[in-house]
Structure formats: structure tokens, C-alpha cells
């Protein structure tokens, strides 16, 4: 974090009472949905053992709705649990899901890709001031100092299109866009410098596939990178295979990525994976005006074309 920002870094973005109120409302709503039989399960968050942590929770019993919470530690994009990758987790029937604005974009994308249907969902939107960055100090309340990078540029704090939205956010301060700045920094480099940057980062990759496994859009039943006939991408965690894997991953998400940055958060090796996704999102916006939004768009930018698309790069 830069030093000039340090001063109000620790100023809480929202009062603790905000989370308490949202949590209460969330529990009430979840209990109602389950006991009235509106849904068969609620996918939400519950508190972790350690201070300032939370994780996904799937609640099917109204009596356990009071385990649900909402706080700045609720980092996960729960849309993951609606995908084929997590087949059968939520069971059958209508499912309620707790969604931050950024998670809603993923839900919209999954609907557009025929993975989920709106009518099978009850979306409990939560107005979110942001979540903790990975590795951030969670002993303090959420502030500009321990906020996740993606949240600094968030435009969907208050979700739209949900069945219910819980919480009303106080006005939030404008924060410097650190991710956009990092992207600009990389773009200003020479190709050789960028190659060195990524080579160093990808060299750390151990192919734990956390990036893939937490991505709501990596729902393929057979990842191309797990295939061995033919072996499109080397499976071994060597520099060559790592580079190929991350290029393929970014390409497969281009035009689909909802920008939740879960890949980057989940990476135990701190590889700035979301930079790749952001870069592709920016390019597709510039080329084709596409942006991941809150409503499903049937055809993404790479499954559609216009006859007058740019072809200045083609001889």
C-alpha cells in the first residue's frame, strides 16, 4: 500500500453494526425461504474458526439458518456451487444463493451459458462495501488498507436484479484503482520485460489448479489441460507447461470472465492472475464493446461476430 494513502487506510468503510444488521436480515430471509419451502437450500457464508475468516456454507435446515453470516470476510464467489463442477452439492429444486454484486455478474454469465436457470434461483443480493484482500490484516475492520484490490474499483456494490437485496450502503470513498494501475504499468513495458514478469510469476505455479477450481466459469467436465490424448498443455508444473496453462486459461475465460478475481485470491503462490483476465476484458471492451454485466447476454463477444469487425491486424 502506498504511504500517502496510509493515513485514512484504517478508517472503517462501514460500521460493524452494518454487518450485524445484514447478517440478521439474511438469517431471517434464509429461515423463511427454507421453512416455507420456497427453496431447498441456501448457499451462503458461515464464520470460520479463526478470527476474521468465513467460508461457504450450504444450509438446508431452517434451524441452521442462524449459522449464516455476512461480513467483509465473505470473499468467496458462491456461484461456483451452482456449476457442474460442484454437481449435486446444492441438491435439486430451487436454490437460494447469497450474492454480492460481483458474484451476480458470474450468475448472469452462467445463465447465458445455459448452466443455470434464473427460475431455479432465489438470489439474495447483499450490498457489499468490499471484502478483505488475501493476506490482509483482518484484525482491523474493513478499510482501504485491507480491502481487496478488485473492490477498489467496484461498481456493483449494490446488486441489481436479485430477488431481494439486503443492506443499504453508506457512501463509500473513491479509491485509487490499484489493479488498473498495475495493468497500465505492465502495458507500458517492452514485450521482453513483460515476458520476464510473467515468466517469474508463472515459475512459482505448482499447478494446484486453485485458480481453475474456484472459477465459476471453469465448469468443464474435462479440462483441456487434463487431457492427454492429445496433450494440448503439459500437465507437469514446469515453466513451459505453466506458461501454456495460464495462456490457455486466460483465453478460455476471455469474454466470459465476470471479474470476480477469485482465481487471483485463491492462488497460494500470489500470481496476479486477474491481471490477465482484466487485460482480456479491457481488450474485448475496446474491440467489441463487451462488458460483463448483471444481466445475461446470450452470446458473448467471442461466439458472435460482425462483418465489419476490426481486421487491421490481418494482411
Amino acid at each position, binding site marked *: 500500500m502506498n504511504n500517502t494513502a496510509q493515513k485514512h487506510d484504517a478508517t472503517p468503510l462501514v460500521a460493524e453494526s452494518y454487518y450485524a444488521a445484514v447478517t440478521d436480515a439474511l438469517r431471517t430471509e434464509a429461515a423463511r425461504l427454507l421453512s416455507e419451502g420456497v427453496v431447498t437450500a441456501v448457499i451462503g457464508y458461515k464464520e470460520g474458526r479463526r478470527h476474521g475468516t468465513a467460508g461457504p456454507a450450504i444450509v438446508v435446515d431452517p434451524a441452521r439458518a442462524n449459522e449464516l453470516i455476512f461480513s467483509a470476510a465473505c470473499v468467496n464467489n458462491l456461484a461456483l456451487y451452482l456449476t457442474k463442477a460442484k454437481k449435486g452439492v446444492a441438491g435439486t429444486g430451487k436454490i437460494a444463493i447469497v450474492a454480492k454484486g460481483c458474484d451476480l455478474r458470474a450468475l448472469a454469465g452462467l445463465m447465458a451459458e*445455459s448452466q443455470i436457470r434464473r427460475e431455479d434461483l432465489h438470489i439474495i443480493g447483499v450490498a457489499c462495501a468490499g471484502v478483505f484482500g488475501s493476506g490482509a490484516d483482518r484484525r482491523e475492520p474493513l478499510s482501504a488498507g485491507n480491502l481487496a484490490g478488485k473492490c477498489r474499483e467496484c461498481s456493483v456494490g449494490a446488486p441489481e436484479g436479485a430477488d431481494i437485496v439486503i443492506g443499504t450502503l453508506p457512501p463509500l470513498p473513491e479509491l485509487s484503482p490499484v489493479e488498473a494501475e498495475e495493468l497500465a504499468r505492465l502495458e507500458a513495458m517492452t514485450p521482453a520485460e513483460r515476458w520476464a514478469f510473467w515468466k517469474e510469476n508463472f515459475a512459482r505455479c505448482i499447478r494446484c489448479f486453485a485458480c481453475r477450481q474456484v472459477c465459476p466459469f471453469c465448469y*468443464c467436465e474435462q479440462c483441456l489441460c487434463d487431457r492427454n490424448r492429445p496433450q494440448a498443455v503439459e500437465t507437469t508444473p514446469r515453466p513451459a507447461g505453466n506458461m501454456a496453462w495460464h495462456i490457455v486459461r486466460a483465453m478460455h475465460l476471455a469474454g466470459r470472465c465476470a471479474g470476480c478475481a477469485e482465481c487471483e485470491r485463491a492462488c497460494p503462490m500470489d500470481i496476479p492472475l486477474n491481471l490477465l483476465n482484466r487485460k482480456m476484458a479491457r481488450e474485448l471492451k475496446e474491440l467489441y464493446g463487451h462488458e460483463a454485466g448483471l444481466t445475461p447476454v446470450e452470446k458473448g463477444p467471442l461466439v458472435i461476430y460482425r462483418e465489419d469487425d476490426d481486421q487491421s491486424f490481418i494482411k
Partner: protein
Amino acid sequence: MSRIGVFICHCGENISRTVDVERVAQVTARLPGVAIALDYKYMCSDPGQNLLKKAVAEHKLDGVVVAACSPRMHEKTFRNAARAAGLNPFLCEMANIREHCSWVHEDREEATAKAIDIVKFTVSRVKKDRALAPITVPITKRALVIGGGIAGIQAALDIADAGHQVVLVEREPSIGGHMAQLSETFPTLDCSQCIMTPKMVDVANHPNIKLYTWSEIEEVSGYIGNFQVTVRRKARSVDEDKCTGCGVCMAKCPQKKIDNAFDRNLGTRPAIYVPFPQAVPNTPVIDRDNCTRFKTGKCGVCEKVCGPGAIDYGQQDQLIVEPVGAIVVASGFDLYNIGPKPADSPYEGYGEFGYGAIPDVIDGLTFERLASASGPTGGKILRPSDGKEPKQVVFIQCVGSRAREKGISYCSKICCMYTAKHTMLYKHKIHDGQAYVFFMDARTPGKNYDEFWRRAVEEEEAVYIRGMVSRLYQKGDKVVVMGSDVLVGVQVEIEADLVVLATAVQARTGADLLAQKLGISYDRYNFYSEAHAKLKPVECATAGIYLAGACQGPKDIPDTVSQASAAAAKVMTLFAKDQLEREPIVARVNERNCAGCLACKKVCPYGAVEEKEIRDRNGNLIKTVAYVNPGVCGGCGTCQATCPSKSVELDGYTDEQIMAMIEAL
């Protein structure tokens, strides 16, 4: 281990001059999986092919690489030879060492090295080749023709005459289309009705044609050879089987003041009506929107007067499913709206020409009705406002067409000719009248067309003014036409008795909706797209669907009829076989891996991808996956490149084959 045979052709000296073919044979013989490599002077000759056949048998080859010319030249030859030797033809590949090597490189060493590489990666590919069997699709030898204008009539008659069943669907109560509304036709000035009505009667009487008028296409499913078409037969309120067409109902109908759309609203018709006297079928339909019985329940005259008891007020729309093997789309065109811009129209309209506000500003089709012997004036040209003979008529061309600012940039193709015709018809009927034509260019490409136009100008004394009209306004009982003559460079003002606008031909309103039902593509103006502008002008991208007439773009009658017959010929070609056989280069879905994102469906240019539900033995849905209909797939492979998990694979170009080649480079 594979047993590949490599056969290297000298092509006389065409290859061996620059490529050391013996060396290629020596090196490639040692490649893993190669059982034999030999070279020969002319591999495509009979002895050369026999060499290949013999080697397949002797060495029990399971793959063949012929290193010779381009596969575009001889792939078929060698695949047939392989087949004759008992090998699946798709296990034979060509390595192009002539067009791509010996002919384009001079350095023997370089060319030889390149030839070796080409053979090498082709060998790697062949090892991953799979035997493929041709795909056969059964064909239902019945055709659907959509639209009963001259295009649809021609196509239906041709197909029916060839002995195949045809289902002809027409939206209006009668077939005939726009041509039935015309007076006389260019460039011969023969009477439209006279040449049209016999064909209409032929349709009605043809044993192979099933005619559905007052009907629309509800849904189309299936694919080439095997379409299921649901036709909505709108309630006619008249039993077609009982009706004798005597016309008493129409005569007795108390509600007679309904604008007659067939006559461009110049005349009126009753609520129970046929659009025009020569209608086919000659069975009336009740216009429920205007019928007193349907509006108030208080009438019932037609039912009382109908001898055969054909009137049926309770008739409902009927949905009928027709299985067909091919579809001819001949849904025709609409005319550009020259009135004020309707809210839902993409086009600007011509408010400045006062159409609708000035009664004596009409469009060309209205003029046709005025000039038609069966029209509302009995063929006398009388202007709408007061029924007087117009002595000065101004024709304005390119109204809507070639007017980018109005939304259409194309040329409507028929207006130059029909305006010339109009001036003649006018002159023939009103000898002392004067016709003026404002035009941009006269476009007359067609047999005897320019002669016809010249006749209008030179013999029939139509005054052609090259220039545009800026404004029309009413002055007394005249319409003042303000325009410019760009050749002379002066402003022109004419006090006309009647102004006729040559309005643009545009796609039918709702053409896009029909296209979506059919799964065919259309351009930005909603005209239907042919598969290839030059070489497949009547085929659609969607196999088994063909285009005829102005639904594809503006066309005159001769072109329309030609295209209709061409479409019919395509249908007959298809029906000449019992089964459709095609190259098995088609995509297949690995259902186990498919996650059902349907990206393949979104990119498929052929609409070949469908959704398929996978259920367990109890019928519970496990998942929805993509299914590629091999009868429809064109084999481009765009689906596979798009599929993130490569769960759809193009036979003949699988990832395994391609990766093997890249790795062998």
C-alpha cells in the same frame, strides 16, 4: 505400432527435378511406424496406383501417405485406390510436395529437406487418422414451398411436375402474390393476369400439390431431408370442402365498405370476400375484424344465403404438421413505406412527398391497379382525388432506393423498367397526356430492356428529367413538383395532375421472424442470404432450404421465375436419391465431457447443433449437452475451436491429428 506406407511420386520430373525423391524415401522409411517407403515415376498412373494397392496388401498397411501433388488434385484418386485395396479411404493422406515444394523452391537441398518434413508430419497425422464411414441421411421426398406468388407457383409446379409432392403455403386467401396485381409486364407488355391465372389454376388442379392458403408457417424443425413443418391454417370461417365458390355470400354481405387492399384501397370489398375475381382457391374468407357477425354477433346473412351450408363461424385455427425433405422460400417482398415514418420502421419515409396527405400522390403498384383491366377503374387511368383523367403525370424514381439517408442503399432493380412501362401504358390510354420522369440513372440490364426503355423515351415521348425532386405540394387541384434538372442545371417546376412514386422493394415485414423459424440467415435489410453470392445463389446456408424470388433481393419476373425453377431443380436433385450421402467430415460431440454451454451452437454457421437431454434410466435429467446433426453439419470445425473442453470434435481434423502434425514439425 502403425504400419504406414509412404509413396513418393516423381511426377515425371516435376517433383524429382528439385526434390531428391530417393532420399525422401530413404529417410521416411526409417520414421517410426513406417513399414515401407518407395518412389515411382507417376504414382497416379495405373501402374503407380497398383503399386500402392499391392503394398497395402503385402505389408498389411493401416495407413497411406502419398507424397505427390496437391490433395486438391489427386486426393480422390488415391483415396479410391486405397479403398480398392481394402483400406478405409480416410486413412490415406496426401503430402503436397509439388505445388507446395518442388514447384516453388529451386534449391535442391532445401526442397528435399522440406519434402521430408512434409511427409514426416503427414505420417504423424495418418497415424492418428480414424476410419470414417460416409454419412447417409434418409430423404422425405416432399417439398414445402412458402409463398404463392409467381416464385412459389413456379417452384411448386416444377417440383410437382417432376412427380414429387409439394405443400404450398400462402398467407393470403389466394395465391397470386404481387404479380396478380400487375397490369401489363415489361418488356413485352403482355397482360399479367393472362399469363398468371393459368398457372394458378394449374396449381389448384395439380394432383401433387397440396395448397394451404390463408395459412402461415408456425414452426420448422428437423434438417435436410427431414424437416417437420407446422402450418397454421387460419380460420377461414368457410368450409373449403363445401363451398362451391358461387359468390352469393359476397353479393349479399351487408358490410361492403371495407378498403380493398388488393386494389391498393382504391375500391371496397365485403367482409366475406375473395381478394380478386380470379382467386385460387375461389373460396371466400371472412374478415373477422370487419364482419358484423364477429364484431356484434348480430348478423348471419352469409350463413343464411349459403346453399351448401359452408359458412362456419366457429372455425378455429388448425395446426397441421407436414413432413418434408426440402423447403423453397418464396415469401416475396413489401414496398417501402413512403408515408410518414411509422414508429417501428427502420426507414425514414418520405414525408416531404406528401404521400397519404395529397391524394394524387400514389405509388407504382397503385398505378398498376389503375391501369389494370380488372382494377377498380376498369383499366381507365383516373386520378384518385376526383376521378378525372390526369393530363400531366410525373413519375419519380428511386423513392427509397439508393437513398442511404433514408436507410436503404441498394437499387430496387425493377423500378426503371416499370416506370418506363407506366409511361407507355399511360400514353396508350391517354394519348394527349404527358408523362415526366425524374430519374438518377436508367438501369436497364436485361434482354430487350434497354430497347424497351428507349421506346418509352423516343417513341412514346416520355420526358425524362435527370434530377431529384425536393418537394411536392398541393396547389388547387394540381400537385406541384419541384425538382432540378442536373443536366441542364435548372430548377424545374411541374404542375401535375398525378404523381407516381417508384417506391423501393424491401423485405417483407416479419421476414426476419420467418428466417428465425427456418434457421436461415438474412442481411441487414432482412433479405435472405444465399449460401454463396455467385456459386450458390439459390441455396441457403442451411442445407435443404432454397430461395426463390424477391425474398432474397429485388428481382423482376423473369429473374424470379428463373430462380424459382433453379430452386426446384435443386430440390429435384436432392430428391433424385433415396438417401443423402455426404463426406463424413462432420463434428461429433463427446457427451460424457460436454458441459452443455452451447458455445458450439452459438457459432455454428449451419444451425447444426441442437440441445440433447441426457437422462438416467428413470428418466431423470442428468444434463443437457450439445448434439451435432451430421446431416446438417457443414464441417468447418468452428465449434471445436470454440469449445473450451474440446468436447466436440471434427472428424478428419481432430486435435489429435493436428497436434501430431505440429509436434512432428
